[in-house]
Each structure stands twice: as structure tokens, then as C-alpha cells.
């Protein structure tokens, strides 16, 4: 019985084809152990805290509860894929850095990916909508207010860069 599966997907803009992985491997372990993408932090490992949030086909999904096989044919972005080729930061990263919207940093990659997905889907989010989205993930350090402000700043930065 064959207990592996063969996948093709795009990871951080790079195409991968015919990658063979055991069926039981989660996306979180695949990213961290096979691709060395250690920016995706694992915490609760049951989809609750959202530390390991990545973007799959535009939607924020926790990598810990997603099996690797589920990404077949999909486009995955992790925190490592947000930076521009020239090393400059994404406006969301830039805003989190500028406003210190983090402390211990463990939830931060997940929060940034969650925020990026929000801004991709809603470029002009209201404060209420930001709160609703950010309520997906746990941050035990900041008390959230500074994160909400960073998302607002990121929305502004993105708009300015497009103008």
C-alpha cells in the first residue's frame, strides 16, 4: 500500500512539481522540516491559535491542521514569501515593524499573513472588520490594539504605493 502522495504546488512564487510526501505529514511540518521555512511557528497544533497561519489560494489557513496533500495544485505563501525580491519588506511587515505591533514575535508571522490575506480581499477594511479578522489568531503579548493599528497603517501604505 502506497502511503505517500505526489504533489504539485506553488510555494512563495516558486513552482514545485511531483513532490512526494507521506500522506500523514501536515503542511506545518512540511514547510518547517522539508523546506526549512522556520518562520511558520507551530504552537497549539490544533488550529486554535493561528501562529502558523499561511495563505493558501488567497485564504488564511493554519498550517498545523492542514495536511500537506491538501495543497496539491494550490498557491501557498508563507512569511518568507512576503518580502520583495530586492529584500524590501511587504507593507504589512513594514507596518508591524514601524508600530512595534509585536512583542515576543511568536504569533507575528501568522498575524502578518492573516493581515495580508485580509488586505488582499478587502483593501479598505473598517476597524470592525480588522478586529473580526484579527480575532482569528491569539496574541498573548500585545493586547491587540497595536496590531489593529498596524493593519490600518498597512492598508494606507498599500493604497499609497498603488496610487
Amino acid at each position, binding site marked *: 500500500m502506497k*502511503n505517500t502522495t505526489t504533489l504539485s504546488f506553488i510555494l512563495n512564487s516558486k513552482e514545485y512539481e511531483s513532490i512526494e510526501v507521506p500522506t500523514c505529514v*501536515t503542511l506545518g511540518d512540511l514547510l518547517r522540516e522539508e523546506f526549512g521555512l522556520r518562520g511558520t511557528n507551530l504552537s497549539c497544533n490544533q*488550529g486554535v491559535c493561528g501562529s502558523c497561519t499561511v495563505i493558501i489560494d488567497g485564504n488564511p489557513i493554519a498550517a498545523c491542521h492542514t*495536511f500537506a496533500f*491538501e495543497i496539491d495544485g494550490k498557491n501557498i505563501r508563507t512569511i518568507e514569501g512576503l518580502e520583495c525580491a530586492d529584500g524590501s519588506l511587504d507593507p504589512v511587515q513594514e507596518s508591524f515593524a514601524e508600530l512595534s505591533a509585536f512583542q515576543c514575535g511568536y504569533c507575528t508571522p501568522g498575524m502578518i499573513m492573516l493581515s495580508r490575506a485580509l488586505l488582499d480581499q478587502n483593501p479598505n477594511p473598517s476597524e470592525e472588520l480588522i478586529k473580526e479578522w484579527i480575532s482569528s489568531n491569539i496574541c498573548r503579548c500585545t493586547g491587540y490594539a497595536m496590531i489593529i493599528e498596524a493593519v490600518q497603517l498597512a492598508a494606507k501604505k498599500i493604497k499609497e504605493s498603488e496610487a
Partner: protein
Amino acid sequence: MYQASNSGLISTSSRDLNAFKMVKPKTIADAVSYLNDFDSVPVAYAGGVDLATAYRENKQIGTLVWLKEIDEISDITVSDDNLRIGALVTHGQGSANEKLACVRGLQESWGKIANVRIRFSATIGGNLMALRTSYEMPILLSALKARINFANKDGLFTLAADEMSQTPRLTGALLTSVDIPLKGKPQIDYERSMRPLYTQAAVKFQDGDNSLIRIAIATEHLPPYIFEIPERLEDFDQIFESLPPDYADLRLDNNYIRYLIPVILKRQIKRLAKGQ
């Protein structure tokens, strides 16, 4: 964490899973046949988070039956007297779908549960099949008199939403869809601001000039309990005296729950009246 034996507790995670076989049925019939090959230890899965909780309790997967490719269970359809929601519809898709407008308040109520991130991956079927008291679809659907449709090797069968937790018939069965009857023009209001302590769904059904309110209450640890009352009943507080005295958990005592039901219900009746 699970109790391995009398010897002790072991904390497991996804890394405790053995590599499993995977099948990707395209039809209900194929899925059912896989789910009934009990020697292969089949587990149905359509993405979402419930399995992550299950394997932390040491559930093993022999064959993973990947349901996402079964098109016939992923639609929302409306007829004159029924709203049918396919098992694979995610919370996000469902609560955003305009077809749900046939049940006033349903989009809003459904849109409140879980969180944005989870709503992208968790399905209505998964929420029901997890059989967890802390999950909320059973509360909404019990109040709506929803029927849950299953397919098994003998054919199709249907359970009332509030029967699910008590039935032994789910083994080998595939949850295909949820039917919400439109008779009586149901309108729903869902109060969850006290979660995880307590939630309450109230649905108003028209019956000629009369209307009926069906209430589903639940706590984090207790399955939904249902009441039905005529809307115009003057003093309905005493009805809730029939709540079984053991309907209580470590956080909420029975007296308070009994007290709370009509308090919230009065507000819900007002909100439902406004919605009309």
C-alpha cells in the same frame, strides 16, 4: 492528550499519525463504499480542523477518505419548501451565500460562529460530525428543525439535527447535506455573546395567524436542549421549569440557565419581530 491505559496520559499530535492510505471518491456511492470498508479504518475528511483535535486524542487514520472532490455534496440549493446545504459548504461560503436569505437571520447567525480563518476551511458537515458540544451548528440547526441527510450502504437516511448526538447509526455513513424546512417561514436569532458559557438560538415559525418559537439552548459542555412555545404565550417563564435539573455544568448552574432562557428569549422575540 489521551489515556493510553490505566498507566497514564500521553500527549499526541499529528506526528503520531501513521502514514495512511488515501482515497479520493468523486461520488457519494464511492465514498460510502470506502467508509464501509471497516478493515481499512476509514476516516472521512474534507479539510478543516476537527481531525486535528481528534488525532490529539489518538484517533488513527487507516484510510483517509478525502471528500472534497464529491461535487454532489458541495452545493446550496433552494426549493419552495426546503433549503439544502451540501456537507462540504464551509462556514465562510455558507454564511456569505445569498440563497440563505430564504431563512431570515441565518446568514448573520452562521456568520458569527468560529472565526474568519476557521470559516475558510471548516465545513458544515465537519462541524456536525465532530459531535462536540462546544461546536455551534447543532444549536442553530436544532432550532431550525433541520434534517441531516446521510448515505450509507443501505441507502439514504435522515436524522433530526438534535438526534445526531444520540444515534449509533453514523458509523459507515456519509453526511451529505442539511435540509432546512422553509415551512412556516423560519426566522432565526442567535445569541452567543456569553460564549463559551451559554448560547441560545430562537427560531420563529409562522403557522397561519399563530407563530411558534423554537429554542435551542446549549453550554460549552452540554448538547442542545430544545423548547417549543407559542409566541403569544403570556407568561412563558414557567415552561422552562421543565429543563431537567441535571442540565448544568461546572460553570453554569441549572437555576441560572432556567432563569436566563426567558430573559434572552424576550430579547430574541423582539429582534425577530423587528426583522419582519
